[in-house]
């Protein structure tokens, strides 16, 4: 069990930079998720931690010790691949036992015929046998030990891959999108199993995924990556409630956040669609801003309704999607505004919400996320405080 630290990690493939100056501190026992769209560099980063790829610049430290010169198996990490990478020609028992066999037996003791000559082998194998069975029991796959990977289902294969990683008792688990190959229902089930496993064994988990739901539900902290950089590092609730960047705001949360153009007006407040909102703008008057409002923060009411303390967007309902537990409304904004927004409503729809109806979507100013022209978060959306300086992107633990 150890902490993992990345210092100034950079990686280029043939001159094309894939990772740019990554600095990351993962505490001992933490579950950290690297999340981002495809191609953002998260898989490359985890492979660098594992030692499968050498980094172009920077250092990797495991347990405070630089490990750049160490081969993957010397780094005390275990990896679970997206395709599980189970050895198809070995039974499940041999798959799980392989890391122990490799580390405890010499080459001669492993060769097909010569190993019959070794007396030490029998006692070592007995020890390995016990350990493998203990891990299999923990993962509830004892009955599968005599099968081959081709005879297992996706979820079972995933558990075998986990078992192979667990049996090494590594300093850190590295998981490269392990749930991506499972169907939706199984994914939900395995998500909670992985989270429980982490709670039980307490080892550091570094988890890579492109699914923001997995990131939000399983992690202690989330590092959102885009184009080789870490955009924001913090608790899942922080990334949801205070996204540091438009890209983070758009990635986290389903349906995606609504983005509307705004500007800073002469009085120093944010002005959107002609209405001044009680949100202070740090930027110079006249500068362009973007307001982000989450669909959950919008409430549909009849067009002429006003509510104290709320502001409203006027629009016409184009269509609604029924999710069972709630609805998603696609609303086209009425002139002078243009564009469309999504609104998420829990429970049944009010009778006035029908296709083509004109609605006022109510929102509180506290629900507005303000971003400047570069996409960076600029203001704390509390009308009564002074605007804070641009929020620090790399949040400290705690």
């Amino acid at each position: 069990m150890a902490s993992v630290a990345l210092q100034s990690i950079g990686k280029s493939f043939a001159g094309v930079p894939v990772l740019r100056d990554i600095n990351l501190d993962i505490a001992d026992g933490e579950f950290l998720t690297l999340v981002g769209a495809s191609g953002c560099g998260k898989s490359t980063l985890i492979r660098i931690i594992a030692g499968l790829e050498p980094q172009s610049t920077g250092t990797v430290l495991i347990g405070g010790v630089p490990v750049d010169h160490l081969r993957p198996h010397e780094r005390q990490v275990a990896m679970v691949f997206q395709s599980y990478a189970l050895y198809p020609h070995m039974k499940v028992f041999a798959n799980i036992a392989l890391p122990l066999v490799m580390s405890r037996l010499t080459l001669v003791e492993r060769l097909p015929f010569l190993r019959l000559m070794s007396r030490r082998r029998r006692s070592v194998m007995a020890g390995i046998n016990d350990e493998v069975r203990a891990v299999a029991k923990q993962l509830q796959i004892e009955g599968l030990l005599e099968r081959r990977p081709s005879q297992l289902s996706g979820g079972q294969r995933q558990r075998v891959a986990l078992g192979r990683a667990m049996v090494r008792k590594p300093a850190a688990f590295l998981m490269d999108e392990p749930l991506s190959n499972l169907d939706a229902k199984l994914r939900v089930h395995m998500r909670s199993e992985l989270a429980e496993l982490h709670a039980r064994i307490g080892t550091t988990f570094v988890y890579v995924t492109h699914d923001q739901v997995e990131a939000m539900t399983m992690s202690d902290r989330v590092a959102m990556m885009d184009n080789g950089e870490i955009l924001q590092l913090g608790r899942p609730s922080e990334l949801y409630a205070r996204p540091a960047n438009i890209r983070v705001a758009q990635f986290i949360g389903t349906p995606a956040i609504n983005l509307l153009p705004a500007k800073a007006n002469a009085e120093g407040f944010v002005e959107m669609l002609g209405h001044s909102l009680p949100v202070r703008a740090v930027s110079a008057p006249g500068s362009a801003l973007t307001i982000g409002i989450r669909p959950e923060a919008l409430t549909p009411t009849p067009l002429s309704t006003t509510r104290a303390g709320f502001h409203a967007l006027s629009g016409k309902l184009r269509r609604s999607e029924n999710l069972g537990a709630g609805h998603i409304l696609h609303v086209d904004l009425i002139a002078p505004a243009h564009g469309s927004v999504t609104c998420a409503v829990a429970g049944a729809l009010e009778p006035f919400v029908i296709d083509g109806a004109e609605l006022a979507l109510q929102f509180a100013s506290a629900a507005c996320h303000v971003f400047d022209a570069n996409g960076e978060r600029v203001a704390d959306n509390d009308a009564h405080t002074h605007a804070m300086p641009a929020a620090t992107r790399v949040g400290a633990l705690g």
Partner: protein
Amino acid sequence: MTTAATLPYVGQPVRRDRQRMIERIAGIGFAMPAFVLLLLTNVVPLLVLLYLSFTDFKLGELNSHFLGLDNFRKALADPVFRRSLYNTFIYVAIVLPGAVGLGLLIAVLLHRRKRTRSFYEVIYFLPVTSTLIAMATVWQFILHPRLGPVNGVLRAMGFNAIPFLSEPSYVLPTLAAIGIWQLVGFNMVLFLAGLSAIPRDLYEAAEIDGCRSGIDRFITITWPLLGPTTMFVIVTTSITAFKVFDTVAVMTRGGPMGSSEVLLYAIYLEGYQYFHMGYAAALTLIFLAFVLLFSILQTFVLERRVHY
């Protein structure tokens, strides 16, 4: 006249049966040309061979007598036949591990190369594409005791010239070496295909699990997953090795003193030099039985250890 509404299935069963009959005839019709060809070129000659082996037919004679199993009895007691069997087995025993092992070695060495891979593939595959009879003549020159470059180099280094093809104990290994030279390229291509089928992340998982050296990787992952390919290569190589003829016919003609007389060459001599067609047919059937037995044996033994 009943309407379609009250008896909806009138007329349908008849149409369906006729449809099936047409499909069946069409199917047989499409398969027939290939089947007839197979019959004429493979099965019919085999049946003729079977018939001939029970007679004492001589090429050119007008009448022949039925001998029953005499030809077979004679073959099993014939010292010439026994010797040719022994020579063939020695040849196969050298060529089989040599061609399979070298093919695998070269494939493993070439597998990871990017720029020079095609170059080496072409070089190793050229012997496979060449006509063995023409190449045999070239080899005869290369290995010549006085005129050949091999012996020239040996003499320049201070050794005596080695009579590769005229010394009875050197002849079979020399022919085996030429046989290996001809087969290695083909086996290499097959092994390269087998190696590409092994997923990359298996090696990465093995690396994390502790497979340090190339030997570890080979015995843990590469060799087991090459199982099907290896089985195929072993069976085809042994069949090809059993069928050796060209090099013997061109270079040594069975000599010196019958030390390179292999099965097929012995059969050729019996049938086309001595014209004992009936006897040659019996020998051919014994040869066929050997090859079949060998292949079936290999398939059964290897099938159990191969995983798909």
